[in-house]
């Protein structure tokens, strides 16, 4: 276990040490103490390691993550796991705005609530929020999934492309060109897999969710290209 105390170690030194990790590193377990809401903790990691942040993190924590499993034992500020490519980011508290923005791959799990614009411009990652999400979530989301066990704020999925949205609770309103769609067996399977990946498969029933997605009236969708998404 590599323990880094940000009360004594510069954040930049920590991030440089994480960036220097190779795919075969033996330093596979990291614990970051005293994050004290600092911005850009564990940004740009590209190694199969586990990093636990022991407290609240500031902006862009775990941004651009690849491969790493990053656990935040507190709240995360704006843009947690933004542009994640792969790996797994777990926020044990709440996430602020734009959680998982533009993320291409990997999974982001938020135990609490995520505020506005969760999964904005999502590009393929899976986001699962056990609480509720704020307004304009999944705005222009292109691919990937957003699963919400609680409620969703206003204008969910505004101008959405082909991302799949699963919400168990109440929707304040749907955004432009976002519509409710039937929950087919394919989607039940997809949703179950996401619940399973987030560790809540036994706790909630896929039948309690409703599916939302694009009405395909706002962009030039050609069914021949459906396989590209």
């Amino acid at each position, binding site marked *: 276990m590599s323990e880094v105390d940000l009360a004594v170690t510069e954040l930049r030194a920590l991030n440089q040490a994480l960036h220097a990790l190779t795919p075969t590193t033996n330093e596979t377990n990291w614990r970051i103490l005293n994050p004290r809401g600092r911005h850009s903790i564990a940004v740009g990691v590209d190694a199969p390691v586990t990093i636990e942040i022991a407290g609240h993190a*500031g902006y862009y924590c775990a941004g651009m993550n690849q491969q790493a499993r990053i656990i935040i034992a507190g709240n995360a*500020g704006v843009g947690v796991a933004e542009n994640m490519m792969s790996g797994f980011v777990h926020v044990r*508290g*709440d996430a602020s705005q734009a959680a998982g923005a533009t993320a291409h791959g990997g999974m982001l799990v938020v135990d609490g609530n995520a*505020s506005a614009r969760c999964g904005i411009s999502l590009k393929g990652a899976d986001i699962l929020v056990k609480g509720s999400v704020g*307004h304009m979530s999944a705005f222009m989301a292109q691919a990937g999934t957003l699963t919400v066990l609680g409620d969703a704020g206003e204008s969910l999925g505004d101008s959405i492309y082909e991302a799949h949205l699963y919400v168990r609770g109440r929707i304040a309103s749907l955004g432009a060109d976002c519509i409710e769609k039937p929950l087919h067996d394919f989607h039940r399977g997809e949703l179950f897999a996401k619940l399973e990946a987030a560790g809540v498969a036994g706790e909630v029933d896929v039948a309690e969710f409703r599916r939302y997605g694009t009405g395909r009236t706002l962009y030039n969708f050609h069914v021949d290209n459906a396989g590209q998404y």
Partner: protein
Amino acid sequence: MCGIVGIFAKTPGIEASLGAHLATMLAVMGDRGPDSAGFAVYGDGAAGQMKLTLRGPSGYDFSRFAALGGLTLRGTHAVLSLPVEAEAGFRAALPPELTIVGAGSRMEIYKEVGLPADVAREFDLASMTGSHGIGHTRMATESAVTTDGAHPYSTGADQCLVHNGSLSNHNAVRRELLREGYRCITENDTEVAALYLTHRLRQGLSLEQALTASLSDLDGFYTFVVGTQTGFAVLRDPIACKPAVMAETEEWVAFGSEYRALVDLPGIETARVWEPEPGVVYAWERP
């Protein structure tokens, strides 16, 4: 960008160190607003007395007012404590080089250009005590770096407001308030927001009701932190354009633009920490 902070003591426990906490919070938010800083502290008051916070040019000799009442000097500011009935006369005879930054039975306001940590030090904020306080660190975007452009804005006795954001309909609201007989000193949008709340409070609304009314009357993006003699409140615009984090324990409730501003508060480890919801008024009142 700008940073705003606030702290409100729910019990007297934290009052002795309130200034010290506010000073730390302001300093941490210095990188969100390095141009100027200001703060208001609600300290002691005496029945029948009005505290006027005066600002003068550097090196101004405030001692000429010592005969009028209690006088406390802090940097370029001085707090003059007068009998309530003497306030109007003092205002009428105010020397032109002086500005009354704020007035109230308990509120004192200090603002100056410079790095927030330096501003807090210049006024010795760390030594101040009180039941609540709010502060602002400014990154000037739409008007010059001047002391007049620094928050908090106070437009009524014991009332003040700090604002992160900018209002889009402040000219229209200002015109309406001028028609009601109010006076605006600056062209600043935040002054209009403060004056709007003063207007609503004067109509008999509670602080919470006044802020709720502002949701339909003020347009733009904003996070407001507001202080009154006994109250403390927070409101974010319905789109939540500007960041906000709150924390609460049995002893206190605190606001910061970012969580970083709150990390040194006593008991923060076990405090409830949350992001205030857009368009929802959060208000606390001391009996």
